[in-house]
Structure formats: structure tokens, C-alpha cells
């Protein structure tokens, strides 16, 4: 963490990390150049506007004549229209560039994520990755468009005003430059303090959100332990801390605002003093003095804005850094160039070159260590599974049952040895080819929001409604769909929210069945469901695994007992293998495991017995 921070700082020092996102900005370079031009024109017009006032004062008021009034008005309207048109164009193009750069960044990061290895997803929580794709990108787009615009406008406004002032009266203008530099310095100092405070406030805010989260999700425990008053006190302490920090932050902000206002008044006083003397001596006309006065007041805000923008850039460089880090993360597991050449990649598969998958699976002297682990989970492990065989993997939670499955699916690759499918190394063919032929049913069935049909078509894109209903019927899930008013069009809600766990499982079975995989991997759910569903699930599993090479991370007795081969896993190692009968006779690890599981499941089967 520390090292990545300092790395971020180093990069931030180099143009706020902007070089990293240049490729995404490049398509918009013409628009950006256009915006820069518009911004400069706009600032020049803004800088020139007080000159109208000067003319009005010097000519109309000073010389008591209205002779050029019509020209004055016409010119003013023309300049105003120009300004309005310029502002309209620059803001709308700027906005467009912002949202389009955002879109491109989101597209790129999302697409990139689809190729990253599972180890990345295991190491980074969903919320973290989500923030990279959604919030970091939007900050970058804002920087590219608006912050650049701000810098251009403010910068050229300040320059233009200084130039005009220098043209009108050099000594006074030079005095103004001094004031400007001073105020920029003061602003920069304040801004640094404010950024620091903002961070503390944000952190404290996260603490309070955490407190609320805990109070809400832990409300039952709070009541049962009778600690509500204590929770109150600890929460009040946190909010008090938040209040103090916020007030502290506000103090810096208020002091900043006040001193900037004071500085622009200082500039005004300076101009009034020196300009007054010049006027008294007849060197400077009243209109010119008035222009100086308005410049003195007007130049402070852009300077403050400039300082603010630059300090924002420092904050945003962290977002840029995180984004480029994501984009620079290489998928740990990827197809070799030859494989891509022949089989295509995830987004452009060359299906014409794809072979069928027959269904033999072999582990050949495999040694495996998880990328974030140190222990050898598998060591010189060999196993041959013939097409159509059913393998059950059993063991305690966290014993490492998923390891074999992860290797077959090539979510991870062995450190030594090979995993062979139909006698060929999995690495010889593309990931997409492999995944298209393997069916994987997860322990916690995951459905996407959308209709049931859309979810089932996830298994096979071109499946007809008949095929879908057939698959549903085979896993006894047709009843679920028929009971719904809109049938296959019924929405399942986010994560399949509107369905029960058992229903979700059955639907995910149907989804796997539709993809008709040569190899099936099934991670049985441990959660208890009602008796009827339980029976349906058991039946569905036997339908699914029939005549298919299958690996089942098993919790159900029937699945275990009937399988062709049982692998018992303990503490990350395969300790026993054989059929149920063989292992029971051995009276070893499997035996204890089995008898204990049997005990636990017994209670759930009471109701079943009653029904029979």
C-alpha cells in the first residue's frame, strides 16, 4: 500500500498522470483544440468588456455627448452576441467531450475486466472494482474537458487583463502583477490545507456510514445484548468528531474566502490611491481609472479558480492512477498468440476452427499453489477421468474443494504438470473454447436481472422457447415458470431477488442443461430448502450429471454415494480417493466426514419420512 502510494505521488508529479489517459483523449483532439480557441476568444472578450464602460465614461460622460451612442450599442450587441455564441459552443462541446470520454473509458475498462483472471477478482472486492469503472472514469472525463477549459479561460483572462492594463498604464499594471502573484501564493497555501481537511472529513464520513451500517444490520444483536445506550454513546462520539472536523474545515474555507475578498479590495484600494493621484494630475481619465478598478476586482476570482483547479488535478491524479493501473493489469491467464491465431479471442472467436470436446479429463503430475498463497495445494497430483464419469469432491468448508474445479476450468493454471482435456493440454486451446464446452453451476446460483428467458438464453443464445421449456421440465423447474403470470417473460429482479434460493438453483440447472456441456461442474448448495424443492434438486442433479463427465463439489448423500469416484479433501490436499464402498471400508477421513454429515442431514429428512 505504502509503495503504491508513493508511486502514485511520483506519477502525479508528472503532469498529474495525464499521459496515461492520452490514448483515450486522442480521438477528441480536434474538439479540444476548438474548445481551447473558443475559451481564449471568450476570455479576451470578457477582458475587453470593461472597455465599453471606459468608453462610456470617457466619451459620453466625460465629453457630454451622445453622438456615437448608436454605434456603441450596435458594437456592444455584436460583441455580446459573439460572446453568447462562443459560450454556448464551448460549453456544449465541452460537455459532449466530457461524457464521451467518460463513455470510452467505461467501455474500455469494462471490456478489459472481461478478460482479467479470477485472481484479480478474488483480490479486489466488487465495490472497489465498481468504483474504478464508474466513479474514477467520470472524474477523468471531467478533468479532460472542464478543468482544461477552466485553465484555458482563467489563464488567458488573467493574461489578457494584464496585457490591457500594461497597455493603459504600465506602473500601475506592474503593481497589480505583484498583488496577483501574492494572492495566487496565498490561495495555493489555503488550497493545500483545504484538500487535507476534505480528506479527513471524507474518512470520518465513511466511519459514520459504517456505524449506520452496523447499527442497522446488527440491530437484533444490539437489542439482545442490551447495548443500545452504549452504541448511542459511541456513535455520538463519532458524530462529534465529524462535527469538529467539519467546522475546522469550514474555518479554513471561510478564512480563505475572506482573505481573497480582502486581497481584491487591497488591489482596489491600491488602484484608487495611485489612480487617484494620476487623475488629480490629469494623467489618467476617470474612465480609465474605472476600468482599472473593475480589473482589480475581476482578476481575483479567475486566479482563485486556477489555484482550485490545479489542486483538484492533484486529487484527480489518484483516480487517473487507479484507472491506468486497472488497464495495465495483465490477465494472469491468457491464450498464447498461436492459440489466439487459431481459435480467436473472447470477442472475436474463430468458431470454424473449434474442435468438439469429447469429455476425458486428466491431471498429469500437477503441482499447484494459489497466486496469493504459499502452500502447495496440490503436489504431483495425477487423476484420470473418463468421459461420462461422475466425480464427487467432499470435504469441510474451506478445505480446498474448488481447487480441482478451478484448474479444469483454467481459472488458474498449474505451477507444474498439465491438465489435459481429451488428451491435450488445456493451454493448447482458447479459454473461450473451453468455457463454451464446460457447464458450471455455482453454489450460490447467480441470475442476472432480466426475464427468465434472458437468463436461460445465457446457456444457449439461440435456444427456442420450446427448448427452454423442455430444459426447465427436465430439471422440474417448469412449474416455477408456469406459476408466474408472465411466464418466461417474468423479471427475476437484481441477482434473481424475486425467486427463492431453491428456485434459483433449479433455473440455473436448466441454464446449464441448455448449454449442453461435455463437462459439467457443479458446486452443490449447502443452504437448506423445503422438502419438495430438495427432492426436485436431487432429481435435477442426476439428470444433469447423467452421461456427462461431471465434477460435483458434493454435500448431498445421494450425489456422493452414487458417484463413480469420490475425492476427499482436507486442508487443501486430496487425502483419500475411491468409491463410496471402498472409502467406507477404509474407515478413515471420509468415514468420519460421512457419518457426521449424515447426522446433520437426518433432521431435515424427518419431514420427508413423514410425507412418504
Amino acid at each position, binding site marked *: 500500500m505504502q509503495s503504491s502510494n508513493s508511486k502514485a505521488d511520483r506519477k502525479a508529479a508528472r503532469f498529474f498522470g495525464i499521459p496515461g489517459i492520452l490514448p483515450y483523449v486522442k480521438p477528441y483532439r480536434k474538439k479540444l483544440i476548438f474548445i481551447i480557441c473558443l475559451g481564449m476568444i471568450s476570455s479576451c472578450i470578457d477582458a475587453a468588456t470593461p472597455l465599453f464602460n471606459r468608453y462610456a465614461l470617457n466619451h*459620453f460622460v466625460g465629453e457630454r455627448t451622445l453622438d456615437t451612442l448608436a454605434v456603441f450599442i450596435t458594437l456592444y450587441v455584436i460583441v455580446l452576441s459573439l460572446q453568447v455564441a462562443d459560450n454556448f459552443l464551448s460549453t456544449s462541446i465541452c460537455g459532449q467531450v466530457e461524457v464521451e470520454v467518460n463513455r470510452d473509458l467505461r467501455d474500455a475498462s469494462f471490456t478489459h475486466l472481461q478478460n482479467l483472471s479470477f485472481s484479480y477478482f478474488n483480490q479486489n472486492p466488487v465495490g472497489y472494482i465498481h468504483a474504478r469503472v464508474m466513479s474514477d472514469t467520470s472524474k477523468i472525463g471531467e478533468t479532460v474537458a472542464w478543468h482544461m477549459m477552466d485553465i484555458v479561460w482563467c489563464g488567458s483572462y488573467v493574461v489578457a487583463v494584464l496585457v490591457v492594463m500594461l497597455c493603459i498604464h504600465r506602473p500601475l499594471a506592474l503593481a497589480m502583477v505583484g498583488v496577483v502573484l501574492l494572492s495566487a501564493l496565498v490561495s495555493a497555501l489555503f488550497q493545500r490545507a483545504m484538500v487535507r481537511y476534505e480528506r479527513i472529513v471524507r474518512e470520518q464520513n465513511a466511519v459514520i456510514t459504517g456505524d449506520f451500517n452496523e447499527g442497522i444490520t446488527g440491530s437484533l444483536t444490539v437489542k439482545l445484548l442490551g447495548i443500545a445506550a452504549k452504541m448511542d454513546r459511541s456513535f455520538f462520539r463519532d458524530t462529534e468528531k465529524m*462535527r469538529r472536523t467539519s467546522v475546522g474545515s469550514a474555518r479554513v474555507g471561510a478564512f480563505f474566502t475572506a482573505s481573497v475578498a480582502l486581497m481584491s479590495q487591497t488591489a482596489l484600494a491600491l488602484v484608487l490611491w495611485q489612480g487617484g493621484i494620476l487623475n488629480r494630475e490629469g494623467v489618467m481619465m476617470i474612465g480609465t481609472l474605472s476600468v482599472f478598478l473593475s480589473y482589480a476586482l475581476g482578476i481575483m476570482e479567475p486566479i482563485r479558480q486556477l489555484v482550485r483547479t490545479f489542486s483538484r488535478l492533484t486529487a484527480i491524479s489518484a483516480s487517473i492512477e487507479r484507472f491506468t493501473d486497472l488497464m495495465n493489469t495483465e490477465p494472469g491467464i491468457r491464450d498464447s498468440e498461436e492459440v489466439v491465431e487459431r481459435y480467436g479471442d473472447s470477442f472475436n472467436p474463430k468458431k470454424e476452427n473449434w474442435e468438439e470436446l469429447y469429455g476425458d479429463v486428466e491431471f498429469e503430475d500437477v503441482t499447484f499453489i494459489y497466486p496469493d498463497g504459499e502452500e502447495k495445494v496440490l503436489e504431483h497430483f495425477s487423476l484420470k477421468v473418463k468421459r461420462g464419469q461422475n466425480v464427487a469432491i467432499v470435504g469441510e468448508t474451506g478445505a480446498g474443494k474448488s481447487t480441482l474445479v478451478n484448474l479444469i476450468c483454467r481459472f488458474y493454471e498449474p505451477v507444474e504438470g498439465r491438465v489435459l482435456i481429451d488428451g491435450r493440454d488445456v493451454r493448447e486451446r482458447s479459454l473461450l473454447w473451453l468455457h463454451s464446452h464446460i457447464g458450471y453451476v455455482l453454489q450460490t446460483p447467480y441470475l442476472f436481472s432480466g426475464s427468465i428467458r434472458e437468463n436461460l438464453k445465457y446457456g444457449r443464445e439461440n435456444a427456442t422457447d420450446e427448448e427452454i421449456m423442455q430444459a426447465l421440465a427436465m430439471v422440474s423447474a417448469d412449474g416455477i415458470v408456469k406459476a408466474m403470470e408472465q411466464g418466461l417473460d417474468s423479471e427475476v429482479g437484481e441477482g434473481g431477488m424475486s425467486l427463492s434460493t431453491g428456485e434459483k438453483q433449479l433455473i440455473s440447472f436448466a441454464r446449464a442443461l441448455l448449454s449442453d456441456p461435455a463437462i459439467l461442474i457443479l458446486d452443490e448448495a449447502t443452504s437448506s430448502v423445503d422438502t419438495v424443492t430438495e427432492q426436485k434438486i436431487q432429481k435435477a442433479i442426476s439428470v444433469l450429471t447423467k452421461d456427462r463427465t461431471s465434477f460435483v463439489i458434493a454435500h448431498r448423500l445421494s450425489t456422493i454415494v452414487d458417484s463413480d469416484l469420490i475425492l476427499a479433501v482436507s486442508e487443501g490436499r486430496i487425502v483419500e480417493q475411491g468409491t463410496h464402498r471402498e472409502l467406507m471400508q477404509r474407515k478413515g477421513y471420509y468415514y468420519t466426514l460421512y457419518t457426521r454429515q449424515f*447426522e446433520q442431514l437426518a433432521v431435515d429428512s424427518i419431514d420427508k419420512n413423514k410425507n412418504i
Partner: protein
Amino acid sequence: MSAKVTKDQSRSRTYTRSGLVMYMTEHCRILFLLSVAFTGLASVFDLVGPKIVEYTVDLILSDEDRGVSLWVLSLIDRLGGRELLRAEIWRIALMVLGVALCAAVLRYLSQMCGSRGAERMVKQMRDRLFAHIIRLPETWYGQNHTGDLIQRCTSDVDTVKSFVADQLTTLIRVILLILLSCIFMVGIDLRMTLVAMAFLPVIVGYSFFFHVKIGETFLQADTEEGKVSAMVQENLTGIRVVRAFGREMYEKERFLTKNKAYTALWVRLMRLLSAFWATSDLISGLQVMSVMVLGAVLCVHGEMNTGSYIAFVSYNAMLIWPVRELGRVISDLSKAGVSMDRILAVLNSSIESERPGSGGSALGNEISFRNVSFRYPGAASAALRDVSFTIPAGATVGIIGGTGSGKTTLVRLLTALYDLPEDSGEILLGGRSLRDWDRDEIRNTVSVVTQEPFLFSGTIRENLRIALPEEEKEERIEKNGEISDKSGNAADSSKADPLSEAEEVAIRRAALTGTLERFTRGIETPVGERGVTLSGGQKQRLAIARMLMKHGSVMIFDDSLSAVDASTDRIIRDRLEEMRSTEAEGERPTVIMIAHRITTVMNADLIIVMDHGTVSQMGTHEELIKQEGIYQKIFSLQTAE
């Protein structure tokens, strides 16, 4: 502080929107008023600045004293007269600075009062919400989603805060500024003031209607963003499904479509916004021009002094920006209403009713259910039907039964998480109806470990001690704080405080000793969101230890050994038994074990078999295995090997 809030709870009042604002601003109203007053004063000083410039131009730099009031002239005389000031203009510059300094100080004070008030208000609101939320009954939690609740406590609170602290004060400030500058401007020239002010309703009105109209498009964009965001969330959560079915391409296309729709909406929004900005630029530009031209004409006709003209133009420039903001602020006001209603919905839900406790118990902690029936609110069928049993004080009781047989409902009723309606039987604790017990008193007597225990973020030690009186705990925290402050990282390795006896005993009895030894930081290991992830069994055991620290006289294990293996289950039960045997006869705690496993309950003094909300069998293990029934069936199944 907490006592005050608790008293508030008992009032349990219902708030209206304005009532909520009044409550929130209870302790900060003065600050807000001060803030507004300071702003008003600051505005006056702001407006005085151009006045000085005006008189400087008119009276010092030239001699246009036409229409200048007498007191100004006398003021100038008192300052040394025109001649002196003309000779030493720096005096005027100093005056400008002085006025500016006053304005700056006042503005600073105003902002400080404002933000102090706002922060005090937010604290009040958050505290109130938190205290309310953790006291809401469990029935209420059944009907509300966590995510939505957190939203209400965080972003809705922020919205209401910015409504009161920013929007309302901005509104008052801008109106004050308009009024004050009106007075100053009228003082200079009425006709010009009328021209300048004529534009204001147009600018404000246009801005208001635009923001109201565009509000819908903003909402639409929010919805679209929500869709994109949800899609990313789903894709990341279900990434294994995506890979397993090889559907990366499909996902990518779906995302591109959604992202495109969202972007298109924003491009449109941006164009609308630019058009709005451009149009209001035009209107303000025309306003400035009108003022300028009219001023020039008046000057030429000799009806206005040069200085007055300059001052008027400055006032006008001061007004334009705040007025342009005004329309947006007014249109934003309506947004706060929605957030306020969402907060009110929480605050106006009634919390667990307070019940007066009355006296001690004559019968120790005997628990007795008499013809208890219960149906959950909104449920179709009853969870308990005519349940009666008595658990003598100090007994060990097992409760066994299938899913949905009503085991947990018994616990929820006994701990007053749900209230038993009148006429649905009676629950007695220590011979006294539960309805006559104070809730905290009940929960101090009856401790429960649930199947999926909740641990608080903090260290294992903090979790263990959470139910203890605070003084002890705080002392410890401070000590630890010192240690980690002084030695920094070294505190990690040098195990902080040794275990106290009570901790040691609780940890040993919950069979956690070995687990703690495996953590490098031992009992100071952080758990929960920002700490080590504990397994289900470890959590259960830690919760058991937490309960043991509390020394309740009734201990309920609600399926809380389900995630530990059979041998650990055994160890924990043995140690509980050992603990009970060391206590004197009359002080033994009552232990209620709710379980699936026969072995967990078989040694109990009494076993209650639940089935579909009724007590189906009751007796000791020996008696029950002889009876034909569910117990016998479970027993034969579990011992089949």
C-alpha cells in the same frame, strides 16, 4: 447526552416536515440567525465600498457636489476636508481597506456561524436517527431494506443539511442583498434602479422554470446511470457465470448499449444546459448594457454625477451573479422535500414500546409458556399454536425440531423482540408476566447466541467486552491507544494486554483458545468489515464467549453450534456443564439448547420437541426414545450407522 435522547424516545413523537426542521434546528437556530445577520452587515459594508469610490470621484477628484447629501459633506469635513483628502488620497484608500476588512471579518463570522450551525444540526439529526434506528422493533426491520435505510441515513441527511444550511441561507442572503442594493441604488437614481430591477424577475423566473423542467431529464439521466452501474455490479458479481458460459462478448455488447444510451442522454442535457447558460448570459448582458446606456444618457443630460454612475455600475455587477443563482436554488428546494419525507418515514415509525419494570422475581428464573399462540405480522399461518411448558430455574433444556417448527419464535418472544398480543396466552419469567418486565431487564436476564451471530467491527477483545459496563472497557481502550501510539507497529507484535481472568475463562469455555493462538495479534485481532474474516464456526464461538462474559442467568443457544464440528460442540457443552457445576445450587444459570443434533440435546434435563408450531413431545432422552414419535425417528436416523 444519551439520557436526553432516550427521553426523546419515550416521547416518541410524530414529526411533520416543518416539525422536523424545528427539531433539527433546536440548538442552532441562533447560529443561523447570527449568520444571516452577519451576512446582512457584510453586504452593507460591501455596498459602502462603491459609495466611497463614488464620493472620491465626485467630490475629491472633481467638484460635482450636486445632489450630495449634507451629512456626507460634513463627514468629509470632519475627515479633514476635501483639500486634504485630495492631497493625500491614500487616506481614502485606507478607508476602502478598512471597510473591506470589516466586510471580510463579518463574512468570516457569518460563514463560521453558518457552518457551526449546520454541523450541529447534522449531528443532532444523525444522532437522533441512529438512536431511533437501533431501537426500532424487529418487525420493522422485516419490512425495510438495509441499503435503502443507509441511503436515508446518509445521502438524504446530506440533502436536508444542504437544504437548511446552504439553500435556505443562500435564499435569505440573496434576497437581503437585493433589498439592500435596491436601497443604495434608489439612493443614486430611481429610474436606473427600475431599469436594472426590471430584468431581475425575468432572470430569476427563466432560471427557475428551466431548472424545474430540466429536473425530469436529470432524473432520467440518474436512472440511466443506475442501469449502467447495476450492470457493472451484476457483471462483477456474476463474473464466474459470465466466464463459465463464455459470454464475455454478449456482456460487452449489452454494456456498450446501456453506456451509449446513458451518454446520449447526458449529451442532450449538456446541450440544454449550455443553451440555458448562453441565454441567461444574453439577458444579463442586455441588462448591463441598458444600465450603462441609460446612465450615460443621464450623465450627459446632467442628471447624474460621474461617481454615482460608477457606483451604480458596480452595484449592478454585484447583483447579477447571485440573482442568476436564485432560480436554481428555488428549484432545488423541492428536492429536499422528498428526502425529508424519507427521513420522516423512519423517525415516525414507532420504536419498541417502553415497559415499566416492577420489582424482582420471587421464583428465580423459571420460564413458563402458558397457551402461547403467535402469528408474525403479515404471515398466513401461525408460527406457534397453544404452546405450554415450564422450564425450572437452573435447568438444562433442549429444544429440537425441523425447520419452521417454531423454535426460534420461542426465543424471539422470550426476549421481547416480538410482543405477544393480549389473549394469545402468557409468558412468565420468574413468575412474572413478561409484559411487566422492562425490555432491557429481560435481555440482561436472558442472553442469546443466534445461529448467524453478528460481530461488531473492532477487535476480538472489544467484541467480547461489548456487553460489559462501559467504564471498564474505555479504560482498556485508552491503554491500548497509548501503546499503539507510542510504539507504532511494534504494538502489533508485542501482544498488548494479557487476558483478564474473565476473558480467559470465557474464551476457554467457548473453545476459542486455539483459534486465538493462531492469530498473530491474538485477542487484539480486528474482526468484521475491516478485519480478519472469521469462519461461521469461529463467529459462533466468539458470540458464545461474548455471552459468557455477560453472565446472564438464562442462556439460550439458538442453533448456535451448527457451524462447529461435532467434537467442538462436545467440548463446549462439557465446559458449560463444568461451569454450571461450580456454581451454587440456587445460582446456576438456566441453559436452553436449540439444535438439530440429538447429541447436542440428549443430556438435557428436559427435551422439548417442536413440530409445526406445537409442542409435540416433552421429556428426558430416556423417556422420549421409548415413545413413538419424531424424537425416536430422529434418533434412529442419526444413529443409523
